[in-house]
């Protein structure tokens, strides 16, 4: 029998709160923080709507020098890892048996754009640290240095499924006995105006039709959706065996019962009903679950017209018509590389609270017969949850979680 895999620590930051307590409260209150984005390097000629993190509280004892050379993505990684690290008491684990998998690729585009635009006319003075920071794997170096991790650390890229992919890879690292504990990080995707422009031009990012009232723009599964709305976020999820967690006397959040990971064989952003259905069925089969056992689904639900519709068809095709559904992105926006990890955290926090958060702007659901949590949170004890992510390039992931 393979060991039972559990989650023993989590850390999160988003535009609606830093830390699990603040994040869970904001989710259950249905709070959102969408506005015209103002971070330098994220607007040029056009303004884009999104949810930006306004401030970040750093753990005491972090030298200002450490933060100076750290990108926004690295700073967010630091604060969420610190939260997860303390909760899971990872200081009591052999550093050589501790690993870190960073989910996301090309995550620091805004920082890079700022450097390129800042030094365009004087390249001779380009800061040498750019050589360190332009690679996403800088997050691995930065975080392993800060936390003394000696086991393994690398990045995995799966577009908007990167966060879930990091969880799958972490689970596999533990199952393969490479490490005892592995932290999956859904890295903060730091978009520049270039990515915003291209994502909007592609029709993936929502238009400016709600420029006058940005709070209405993000509307997953609503008839008036027209694309995803970006939101900065970052999350860390600590994965280990139940046996390993018992050695430190930690009470886990949930058991990772199984997962599905399917490629569509399609480079385009278009979703695939077949791929999504297959990922869900694989996850259910790996868990030994019937669809009726799932009582909550945290869908990918970006607000993309084709994506939302395809996902609900996949849920129907898999017999998941009775489970409760909400859309975490309706509150925090789409974190892209971070989304999968942050939404797993949202799922496990709802599981622990015995409550489900509302879905904002779900006025006319495209499939009204499904079991939506709409404008108010509800009490519901989750036993078995399914979380879904899909990414450009035809990647589909589905994870099954049982309350511990």
């Amino acid at each position, binding site marked *: 029998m393979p060991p039972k895999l559990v989650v023993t620590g989590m850390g999160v930051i988003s535009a609606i709160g830093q830390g699990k307590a603040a994040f869970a409260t904001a989710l259950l209150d249905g709070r959102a923080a969408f506005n015209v984005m103002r971070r330098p390097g994220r607007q040029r000629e056009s303004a884009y709507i999104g949810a930006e993190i306004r401030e970040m509280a750093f753990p005491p004892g972090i*030298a*200002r*020098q450490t933060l*100076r050379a750290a990108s926004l993505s690295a700073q967010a990684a630091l604060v969420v890892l610190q939260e997860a690290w303390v909760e899971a008491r990872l200081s009591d684990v052999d550093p050589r048996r501790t690993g870190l998998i960073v989910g996301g690729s090309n995550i620091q585009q805004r920082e890079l754009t700022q450097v390129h635009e800042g030094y365009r006319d*004087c390249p*001779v*003075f*380009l*800061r*040498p*640290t750019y050589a*360190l920071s332009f690679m996403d794997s800088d997050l691995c170096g930065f975080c392993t240095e800060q936390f003394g991790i000696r086991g393994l650390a690398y990045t995995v890229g799966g577009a908007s499924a990167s966060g879930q992919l990091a969880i799958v890879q972490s689970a596999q690292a533990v199952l393969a006995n490479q490490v005892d504990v592995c932290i999956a990080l859904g890295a903060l995707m730091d978009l520049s105006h270039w990515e915003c422009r291209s994502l909007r031009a592609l029709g993936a990012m929502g238009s400016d039709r709600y420029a006058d009232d940005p709070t209405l723009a993000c509307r997953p599964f609503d008839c008036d959706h027209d694309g995803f709305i970006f939101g900065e976020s970052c999350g860390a999820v600590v994965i280990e065996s139940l046996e390993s967690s018992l050695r430190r006397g930690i009470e886990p959040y949930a058991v990772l019962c199984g997962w599905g990971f399917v490629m569509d064989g399609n480079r385009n952003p278009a979703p695939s009903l077949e791929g999504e259905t297959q990922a869900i069925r694989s996850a259910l089969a790996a868990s030994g679950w019937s669809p009726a056992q799932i009582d909550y689904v945290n869908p990918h639900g970006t607000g993309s017209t084709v994506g939302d519709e395809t996902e609900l068809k996949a849920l129907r095709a898999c017999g998941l018509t009775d489970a409760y559904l909400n859309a975490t992105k309706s509150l925090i926006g789409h974190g892209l590389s971070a989304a999968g990890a942050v939404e797993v955290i949202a799922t496990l926090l709802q599981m622990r609270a015995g409550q489900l958060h509302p879905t904002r702007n779900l006025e006319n659901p495209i499939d009204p017969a499904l079991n939506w949590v709409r404008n108010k949170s509800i009490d519901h004890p989750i036993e078995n949850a399914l979380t879904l992510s899909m990414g450009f390039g035809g990647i589909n992931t589905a994870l099954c979680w049982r309350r511990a």
Partner: protein
Amino acid sequence: MTKTEMLDLIARHTREILPGLDAHQFVASDRLADLGANSVDRVEVAMLMQESLGLSVSRVELFGPKNIGELAELFLEKLDAA
């Protein structure tokens, strides 16, 4: 530019890279490595100096100075020659 002004500029840029040195009183005999600057921090300070002075100095020449006083002299010489 006097040597004192040059040392002040080095001190300013060193503090940018190492904010922990805010209260440090810089003297000519200070060595950046002893102040906690690693190899990357040291090339960052050197690059900020070049940017402020509008000078380009080769890496090889920057290996020479043994303390910030000698570094100030190197930059003063380069400034004169420019």
